[in-house]
């Protein structure tokens, strides 16, 4: 007893007070850094190169919305293809048939490890390897296929983990009611698995949105420019980076509402459980 009392007496500050002091120091450092940056920066220069008001107006008025739409279309097609192929790959990985498992594993490891840039380059050169080959709906066919291939490799692993997170008892209950393996997968496992997968799949969708900036490799006409290509072209012709900054903010116009929608979906899904 006396020992313990002495121990408490020796410790000058309680852990809670110490934590509060450490946090105060962190805030102070942050504020100082902000002030230093604000003082050292050349604001007029920043305004001219990054946020030229005339160029902002110009960029928004001439082609930003079309580029935004194109980015959306490229991503949506890639995501849908990736989701379908990813689901198929996930089921192959979980299959009892060895060759299916191996094929899926090889595919996933290969395309997950390869930079998306390389996949796009390979795809734009595909007609060289197969003379006469033409992807449908140019340029969408090529873009969707390339994004779908990259996306499916990531999504397959997410979907596999989601399927495996559904308790085995669910499948047993379904099978004991006379459902076939396919019916149990479709009606019982997948609906529950997709609920588990909403957050990681959102991540992959956002990654695809950004990967869609690689479409420039395919070679596009101005009407098919995505946000990044559009911003870069405008930045080059104006010798000013403002259009690219505007185009970059265009991505946030897509991703921020997406995050909010997904958060709502998650809340709704968790209510049912």
């Amino acid at each position, binding site marked *: 007893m006396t020992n313990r009392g002495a121990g408490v007496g020796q410790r000058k500050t309680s852990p809670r007070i110490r934590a509060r002091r450490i946090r105060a120091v962190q805030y102070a450092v942050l504020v100082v850094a902000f002030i230093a940056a604000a003082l050292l920066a050349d604001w007029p220069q920043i305004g001219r190169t990054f946020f030229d008001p005339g160029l902002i107006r110009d960029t928004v008025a001439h082609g930003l919305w079309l580029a935004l739409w194109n980015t959306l279309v490229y991503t949506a097609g890639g995501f849908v293809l990736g989701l379908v192929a990813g689901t198929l790959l996930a089921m192959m990985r979980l299959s009892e048939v060895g060759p299916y498992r191996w094929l899926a594993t090889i595919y996933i490891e290969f395309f997950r490890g390869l930079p998306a840039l390389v996949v796009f380059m390979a795809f734009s050169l595909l007609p060289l390897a197969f003379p006469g080959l033409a992807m449908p709906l140019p340029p969408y066919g090529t873009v969707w296929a390339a994004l779908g291939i990259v996306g499916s490799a990531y999504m397959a692993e997410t979907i596999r983990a989601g399927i495996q997170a559904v308790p085995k008892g*669910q499948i047993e*209950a379904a*099978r004991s009611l*006379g*459902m076939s393996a396919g019916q149990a997968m479709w009606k019982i496992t997948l609906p*529950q698995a997709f609920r588990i997968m909403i957050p990681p799949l959102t991540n992959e969708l956002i990654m695809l949105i950004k990967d869609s900036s690689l479409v420039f490799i395919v070679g596009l006409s101005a009407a098919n420019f995505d946000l990044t290509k559009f911003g870069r072209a405008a930045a080059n012709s104006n010798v000013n980076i403002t259009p690219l900054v505007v185009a970059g903010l265009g991505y946030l116009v897509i991703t921020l509402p997406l995050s909010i929608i997904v958060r709502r979906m998650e809340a709704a899904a968790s209510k049912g*459980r």
Partner: protein
Amino acid sequence: MTQTDPLVEIRGLNKYFGSNHVLRDIDFSVARGEVVCVIGPSGSGKSTLLRCVNLLETPQSGTVKVNEQELTDPDCDIDAARRQIGMVFQQFNLFPHHSALDNCTLALTTVLKKKRDEAERIARENLERVGLAEKVDAYPARLSGGQQQRVAIARALSMDPALMLFDEPTSALDPELVGEVLTVMRRLADEGMTMIVVTHEIAFAREVADRVVFMDGGGIVEQGKPSTLLSEPREPRTRDFLKRVLEPVAD
């Protein structure tokens, strides 16, 4: 009756998990309308035996016949055969993304291809049968364990099975919720349902079962009328087990 008209007939059943021999040459049959309770220590193989009846576990050898149909025959349509065998699990295994009603209608519409309104009528009827008429729209997460298990029973009954399997249906329940589930099961037995019940509820077995089977070490050690087996067991292993179950605090 047992000899002339068995609903379930199991012959020479062997089941291994790896090198673990869980069921050893089991012969076992159940007559139509009979209620059989299977008791025994954990690891005795009683749940595995039950899961072999609807082939949730595939035995390595032996035959399982239910309602004149051999389930272990490779040509048997196992999905069709399982429709007539209802199963109730220890962990309920309700579908969490469906309401109580839809838990019951799902197999009716997808497996039996019934019209939506007919499926709902059947489902409501069976939810009423287990005393949950007012909970049809509730999701499993909003139900107590006892209510969930009763929905699971209604779900199995909705398929109009010839046989009901119960795998420790009250083992995951809080003690005060056990009674409502056992009451439903007792009523089912009184209505003449053929039932195989793996359970630790000795009182239930004594009162409801036509026959009690004691399993240990992957085999059937002895079986008989509950009054005889539970009061004057022949085998020392049965006596031992009953003593431990009925007087858990002693020694």
